[in-house]
């Protein structure tokens, strides 16, 4: 919860996820064999799954996130009313049985607003995660695999993005580019997606560094040499042979990017430079509610709690993933 977007904490978490043996199943296998408890050989993934499911908090979090994702996918099924159904005779009413989270300044059911806001915020976070993962992986893989001048150029660019004062750049970009939807030729991008693009532009760097690290350490390994010798193309080697070894750190980092994206988007929207009303998002709901002051506490409190719960769940899942996919970490945890 730094005041700045969560890039720093991604550094913390991500740093640990880099290791020469990214999946690191070896240790566990040996243990099992030594104790003679298990004879059936298991895949890496089933071990990861077993370890993840041992992490109870992560499991509960996964369930919570799964539920919120369903709600966000089909908000209409869960919201008691439409997000814009005004009831001008019932303005700013506190929580009651009719309106579990009260109503807002136009008498709209706030629970419905929060659910639709959740949809926007989750979509944005999801897109940021996907975009930044694709970009980060691609850049990191190319830099690590080719090395030399390609590596130098790409990593200098990554450093450049890393030296930018994140929130300041986000605010400026939000203020000057992100106030409305943009169109690139025939493609029109909705306003929340513009915000997602801006966020993604700053969020891929950590992953790029991690992936590059793994590629650097693996590209000289025998199996890569063998693949090369048998005439595999570069793209095939990158995608089929080396990339699977990065899945652990990629999954972990992506999870943490989701949490960072949710929190950062909320802060941007709160300051008025993120998602613009009338599109509801968790951050701008709080900003709208805050205008009402102390008297309308529910308008500020509920969306805030939802943000905390989601970010918490995502962080726990990230933690569980790290334990599962990178057991060397377990000594530390």
């Amino acid at each position: 919860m730094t005041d700045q977007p969560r890039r720093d904490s991604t550094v913390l978490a991500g740093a640990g996820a880099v290791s020469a043996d990214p999946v690191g199943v070896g240790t566990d296998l040996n243990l099992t064999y030594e104790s003679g408890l298990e004879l059936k050989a298991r895949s890496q993934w089933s071990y990861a799954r077993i370890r993840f499911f041992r992490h109870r908090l992560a499991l509960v979090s996964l369930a919570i996130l799964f539920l919120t994702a369903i709600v966000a996918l089909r908000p209409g099924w869960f919201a008691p009313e439409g997000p814009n159904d005004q009831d001008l005779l019932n303005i700013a009413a506190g929580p009651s049985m009719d309106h579990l989270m009260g109503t807002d300044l136009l008498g709209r059911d706030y629970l419905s607003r929060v659910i639709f806001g959740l949809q926007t915020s989750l979509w944005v976070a999801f897109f940021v995660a996907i975009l930044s993962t694709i970009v980060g992986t691609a850049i990191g893989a190319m830099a690590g695999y080719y090395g030399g001048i390609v590596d130098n150029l790409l990593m200098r660019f990554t450093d450049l993005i890393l030296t930018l004062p994140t929130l300041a750049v986000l605010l400026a970009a939000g203020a000057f580019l992100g106030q409305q939807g943009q169109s690139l030729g025939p493609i029109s991008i909705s306003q929340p997606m513009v915000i997602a693009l801006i966020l993604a532009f700053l969020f891929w760097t950590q992953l790029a560094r991690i992936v590059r690290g793994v590629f650097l350490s693996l590209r000289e390994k025998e199996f890569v040499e063998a693949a090369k010798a048998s005439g595999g193309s570069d793209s095939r080697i990158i995608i089929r042979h080396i990339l699977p070894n990065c899945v652990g750190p990629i999954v972990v980092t992506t999870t943490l990017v989701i949490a960072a994206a949710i929190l950062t988007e909320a802060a941007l929207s709160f300051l008025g430079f993120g998602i613009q009303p009338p599109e509801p998002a968790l951050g701008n709901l709080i900003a709208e509610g805050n205008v009402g002051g102390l008297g309308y506490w529910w308008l500020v409190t509920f969306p805030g709690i939802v943000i905390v719960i989601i970010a918490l769940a995502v962080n726990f899942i990230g933690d569980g993933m790290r334990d599962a996919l990178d057991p060397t970490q377990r000594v530390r945890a």
Partner: protein
Amino acid sequence: MHKRSILLVVGAVALVASLIVGPAATAKSDAASAGTVVIGHDQEPVTLNNLITEGNAYTTSLVTNTVLASASVYNQNAKLVPYLVDAAPKIVKPNPLTVSFKYKASAKWSDGRQLTGNDFRATYNTIMNPNFDITSREGWEDIASIKVNGKAVTVTWKKGKAYAAWDALVATSPYPAHKMAGQNFNDLYRNSIDVASGPFKFVSWQKGTQLVLAKNTAFTAGPKAKVDRVIFRYIPSTPSLFQALQSGEIQVTEPQPQLQIVDIRKNSRFKVQSGPGYFWEHMDIQFGPKGHPALKQAFVRQAIITGINRNQIKQALYVSPGLVGSAKELPVLQSHIFKPFEGNYQPNWKKWSFSQKKVITMLKAKGCTGGPNAPSANNSAVWSCPNVGKLSFRFTTTSGNQLRALTFEIAQKQLKSVGIELIPRFGPAGTVFGQVLPSGDWDIFMFTWLGGPTSSSTSFGLYGCGGDQNYMNYCNKKGSALLQKAQFTPDPAARAKLLNEAEAKYLSQDVMSVPMYVRPGFLINSTSVKGPVLNPTQQGSTWNAQGWTVG
């Protein structure tokens, strides 16, 4: 680190904390010591020079009006009352317009010099100097001559250029001739004002935090100030401003319309005054080539104004939540020229009463198709009219303004149920006003005109053919001629007649813009401060600060 060390650290922190909290609890009760009034404002002045562009802001007026006093002051009823002048300035001759007035014998500068007609002349010369960034030279540029005889001044305008708002012009604060001589006026009073003609004088300005004024003991032109100090605290975010008000850090404030005011109204520690001001909210319609073709049809514009329940909007935003005291305080605005509280106000737009059925009948009669047969909240069909296409309009306004966003949402819903679609095009104030509005590339644009008591006389600029601020590209030649004539009619009654004729016969018939409501002004003061009275003009809440008491 051992357990004990941890305890040590925790102990140390606790000690520091208690040091802070302990005395703090008893240190201060309220923000004000005896004789000090603290005014909170959400905007800090850029400069204290009220005449140049960046100083032409309400927040600057609040400070300067008490230091460099106006010759005549707008009171709570927006009437000019003599302050530094002996009596209300008089028209000596209507053509060419000649006006005379005389500063009080007791009017003097705080450094002991007399305030004379030369100060007025120097102010005129400064305003007309093209090197200085003067906000507006309107009226001043048509002055033919100024005759000064000690404290007496006679101003004559050019023939045929009788300035309608002459009374407001001669009421302008005279600036000190002896301080302006040889100075670059753009830099004068940027950070401080070294002389005073009003009941207060400037003491200090701690940027980003507060500005301090103290009683001007040399002031003799009227009653001296009763409080020792007036302090402006600058808290540039409205929620924080309210927190500060509730926790006693400020005592007087004039907030933007915000729902927090409702809570404050219920609180016996505060007094809330509200009333209509001169800022009016409206939805302009684009007539130019970049606007929607359908909007060039009178029946479409008439359908829009008929389909918007303006009464419901202002009720929902201001009356039902309890922002303003009663519905009477904030009537639906039925004129673009005068405000409901002005004597010359006529409800020229009243004919466009809200009726959803009528909208549908109107559109059907003109051969439009595809719309709903009856108004319905769930309707999603949109009308298409012959030759002009679908009735789907871009709706532009500033983002980040809660009440505007809500206004849009209500209006959008109302029009949707009769088959007219509004698509939001919100943007930051800088972009929508700087680029979008002048470009004419919009269909419907909602914003506020920052008017004042004299704005009715300059209606030509807004609604006349080719008017400077006529961003709608609207032109009705007959109406325009009347507006132009009014601009140079110094007699208020004759002027009002022309303006009302133009609006009733032409403007309102054309529906070039939908008048919404006059934005209410608010003045909140802690009950420990007595005397603040809401003033609807740019004079602002400090207009009678010399009469305030605190206790």
